[in-house]
Structures are given as structure tokens and as C-alpha cells.
């Protein structure tokens, strides 16, 4: 989708990332010297038990959190130097997020939820939002609000929203977490299609089903990446 961008550099790379928190019982190491590269057109599943640091890693990839040591590179450039505003712009332009519990805005219709990331831009993304909802099979649910949609439909709205900005990277947190097996497979099929179009997809999960659809699976245990 964005093949020409970044001079062939991987869209996102984590280089020796360590993240430590000051917890009640001393320092907790959530990520320990993690190296990881997101490749275009590839679905990577990050598996691991709860508390293994999966969400922290996804936050690093999404430029939502800063590492204690190590660097995050976007298209070959370190993001540590970016201001808060520039990071927000990067997220708006390059990154798509699919959250575990969908996180749709309850007062907005499906179309409005999908174009939410572009809401404050001058250009009108309504047509693209409608198109994306059609692609995830929700052409007849455009004006429905989240409470009128099933879990699988909400997740597909969330996926359509993550694609509104034609991202280089799609980050999904437990994309099948709240879905039954059939719906989960349908959603993973969508994600596979997105990767086929050249987007680097990273999904953190403890659902083995996601692993079946992934091109690459890595294990995260106690903050250490294995695979």
C-alpha cells in the first residue's frame, strides 16, 4: 500500500528496548532488551501469557510509550527526538490501532467511528470510511451505532477505523479476544488481506488461532522475546 515509503527501511523497529516500571515491590522489568522488526506484508503474532509485557511492547510500537533504554525507529529514524505533537501526527498518518475491547465511541455511527482519526482534518474521509466498511462486510450497517452491532461487527468497524489513514503498520491487541471462533476467523481473514496489501501487521494475543494465521510467531515471556 505504501511500498515507496521509507526507502525500503522497515516501517518499525525496536532496538534493544528495555522498559522498567517502579512498582510497589521495587523495579519491574516489563521488557528486557527486546529487538523486533515489523516487516511489510507480514502478520506477526506476539504470543505470551498475561503480564508477559505484550501490551507494553505494542505501546512501544505504537509510539504511545517511551522505553527506559533502547530505541524505536520509524522508517529508519529514531522517534525519541519527536515532540508529542509529531508523534501524534505519526500515529495519525502511519499507524493503525485495533484495541482489545474495540473502543468505539458509543455516540458515533459506524461511518463516523471509522473516520474518527481524520475528524479534525480538512479533507473528508467519509467516502473512504464507507468503502472500508463495505470491504469488511458492513455496507448495510453504516449508520448503526456500536450498541446496535454484535461483537464481531464492532471489531470489524474497529479494523476499518485502523485502515482509514492507509497505515504502514497495523497494531492489534487481542483482535480475537472477545469473539467466538467463527467470527475470530473472519476477522483474522480480514487482517490477512490487509497484510497482503503491504501493511505490516502485529497482533499480540494468547489465542493460538491467531498464530495459525500469522506468518511469524514470537513468544514473549517475562519481557524476554523468544523466536
Amino acid at each position: 500500500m505504501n511500498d515507496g515509503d521509507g526507502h525500503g527501511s522497515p516501517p518499525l523497529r525496536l532496538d534493544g528496548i528495555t522498559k522498567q516500571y517502579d512498582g510497589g515491590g521495587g523495579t519491574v522489568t516489563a521488557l528486557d532488551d527486546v529487538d523486533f522488526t515489523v516487516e511489510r506484508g507480514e502478520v506477526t503474532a506476539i504470543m505470551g501469557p498475561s503480564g508477559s509485557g505484550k501490551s507494553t511492547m505494542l505501546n512501544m510500537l505504537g509510539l504511545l510509550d517511551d522505553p527506559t533504554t533502547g530505541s524505536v525507529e520509524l522508517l529508519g529514524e529514531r522517534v525519541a527526538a519527536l515532540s508529542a505533537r509529531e508523534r501524534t501526527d505519526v500515529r495519525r498518518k502511519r499507524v493503525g490501532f485495533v484495541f482489545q475491547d474495540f473502543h468505539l465511541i458509543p455516540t458515533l455511527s459506524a461511518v463516523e467511528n471509522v473516520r474518527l482519526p481524520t475528524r479534525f482534518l480538512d479533507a473528508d474521509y467519509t467516502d473512504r470510511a464507507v468503502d472500508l466498511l463495505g470491504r469488511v462486510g458492513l455496507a448495510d450497517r453504516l449508520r448503526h451505532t456500536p450498541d446496535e452491532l454484535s461483537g464481531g461487527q464492532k471489531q470489524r468497524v474497529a479494523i476499518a477505523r485502523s485502515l482509514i489513514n492507509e497505515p504502514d503498520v497495523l497494531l492489534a491487541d487481542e483482535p480475537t479476544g472477545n469473539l467466538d471462533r467463527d467470527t475470530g476467523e473472519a476477522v483474522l481473514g480480514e487482517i490477512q488481506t490487509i497484510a497482503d496489501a503491504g501493511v505490516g501487521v502485529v497482533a499480540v494475543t494468547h489465542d493460538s488461532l491467531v498464530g495459525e494465521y500469522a506468518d511469524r510467531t514470537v513468544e514473549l515471556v517475562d519481557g524476554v522475546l523468544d523466536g
Partner: protein
Amino acid sequence: MADERASDQSVESSLATRLARRFPAGSLAVRNLSRQRLRAGLAMLGIVIGVFAVITLGMLGTALQTAALAELGGLGNQVIISPDDGEENLGPREVQAIRQAAAGGGTVIPLNSGGASVSGPNGQSFAQLYGTTQPAALFGVDNVPDTLRQGVAVGDELAAGLGARVGSAVEIEGNRYRVLAIIDSEGTFSPIRPGSAVVLPPDEFVADDYAQVVVQADSADDARAIADGVRERLNTRQERVSVLSLTSVLSRITEFFALLNGFLLAVAGISLVVAGVSIFNVMLMTVSERRGEIGVLRAVGVHRDEVLRTLLVESTLLGVVGGALGAILGTAVVVGVALGTRLPLSAVLVPTNGLVVLGAFGFGMLIALGGGLYPAYRAAWEPPVESLRG
């Protein structure tokens, strides 16, 4: 197929969609407010009550002040010069001195006066007689002609007793006069009480001297200066005239009203500040409930200032709608009071009251904006990782 739907949809709600696209923060804010109608309504009610209180108290205060000054205004601008005890009348020398003192600051009206029995179509009564060439300047009412020639103006109370109207005849000491005008004494407040008086041409009086001289000054300051000037010119060597000017009393009354109005507005203003605290509280609840949503907005690339703007529009909208409702209600109640009591509507509809309405509305809006400031800032500046966790 999807395209068809899209065009259907945009035709269907084109105005709403266009507005939402034009004002993204505004449209989000309206949706958010509609989510918790009762809570938003109650927060708004505070502003309605606050603005209502400021407007009713402020407007009524102004109206009372305007009405009172309209009644007392003549008093404040009048200087009445009469002979001091022991002196007979005011002669041409005194009138000349008064004219000099009043030059440029007011109109000098020498008055003959006396008393006589007056009979009209329906009756007879003893009345105060005034003689002047400038009845309009003194009695300040439109329907009194500037000069009286072979006719008189009759005070309204006296006219009612005599059954006299404009055009009818009255008889004073054997002479018949046509009634040229009826003096409306309503709203005038002056030591010269025209209601039960007859105003004649001065030629009808035997004496050439004047019983008193009234100076109708252009302003209260002029009245004060003229009174001082007259005292200086006529009373330096001995007390020849007594000078009556109630300007200082009037300015005391004005000061009192200003103090009263200020106090009432301050009390009403406090209720608006309380309303601001309730908006602050509501916005704090709102942003803590929507923490996750705000985190999503920030994560998908909505800037801090855009989130801030949306939340501020939300709280300001409470002030705008509440302020408008309060302004309409307050104005309606004050107009209702004016229509239902003796308070004249013209005293309500003065420019100052326009400022009261605008000021109260603007203050309400600012209070609402201020109430939303900290909650909006806190929500927009929280790191998205934190908000998403909540």
C-alpha cells in the same frame, strides 16, 4: 453499492454532516452532552439560574434607578430662587444677576405667582396661579405651548375638578381665558407643583416683580454652579435671596442606587460562580468516565489541543445555552414586572439593561468555559497509555 449508500446518506443529512465536518469539535461536543442529558441539563440549570438572577436583579435595579431619577431628575436640575425673608419680590436687577449666573448652563424662568378662585364648566376651585412666558421650559411637558397668548394652561388635577379640557373656557377674577393646554403633572417632581395650578401669561399679573425665579439647568453640575453663582452675585453683602437646589440630595440618591445595584449584582454573580463549580464537577466526572475514549482519540492521532477544544466546547455550550435561556427568562420576568406594576416599561428598556443582559450572558459563558478548563486540560494532557488503561 457502497457508493450509492454513501450518496444516499450524504443527501439525507447533508446539513448535519456539513456542520459536523465544519465544526468537528462542536459536533462531537453536542453528541457527548446528549449522552448524559440529565447531568448536562442540571449543570446548565445552574447557569440558567445564575444568569436569570443577574439579569432580573440587574435590570430591575437599573429600571428602579431610571424611574426614580426620571421623577426626581427635574428636582436635581432645578434651582429655585425666591426672596429672602423680609424682602418683597425679585426685581429686574436680581433677574439680571440670575441670568448672568445661568448663562450657558440653563434656562431662566421668572415666575409671577398668586392665588385666585378659578371656575370652569363643572365647578369652582381655589388655585395657585403662575405667570411665565416659557411654560414649556418649566413644565417640561410637550402639550404646553411655548408662549401663552390670551390663554392659560391648567394643571391636570385642577382641570379634572373643573371639568376643563383643551378648548374650554375658565374664568379667573372675572376674566375669561381659553384653556390652551392641560399640564400633565405625572412624572414631574418639583417644588413647583403644576397639577393644581393655572399658568397664565405674565401680563395678566399686576406686579412687575417676580415671586420667584426658576432656573432649569442643563445638568446637575450646571445646577450646582448656577446656585453658587447666584449666591455669589446676590448674597455676598447680605442675604437677599434664598437659593434652593437639591442637586446634592440627588447625587446621594444616585450613589445609593449604584451601591444597591452593585450589591445585588454581586449576590447574583455568586450564584453564577456556584454554577461554574457545578460545571467543573460535571466535566471532571465526564472526562473520568470517558478516559478510555479520550485515550483512543489520542492514540489514533487526535492532537491534545483538538481534544482540549472538544471538551471546552462541551462546557462552553452549557454556558451558551444556559445563558441564553436565563437571559430570555430574566428579560421576560422583568418586562412582566414592569407591565404588572407602576414601573414604566421605558425605564426597563434602557441601553444599560442591554449591557446587563449581554454582560450576564457573557459572564455565564466565561464561567462555563472556566469550569471546563482544568478537567479538559487534565484529560487532554494525560498520556494515552494511561487513559487507555483506565
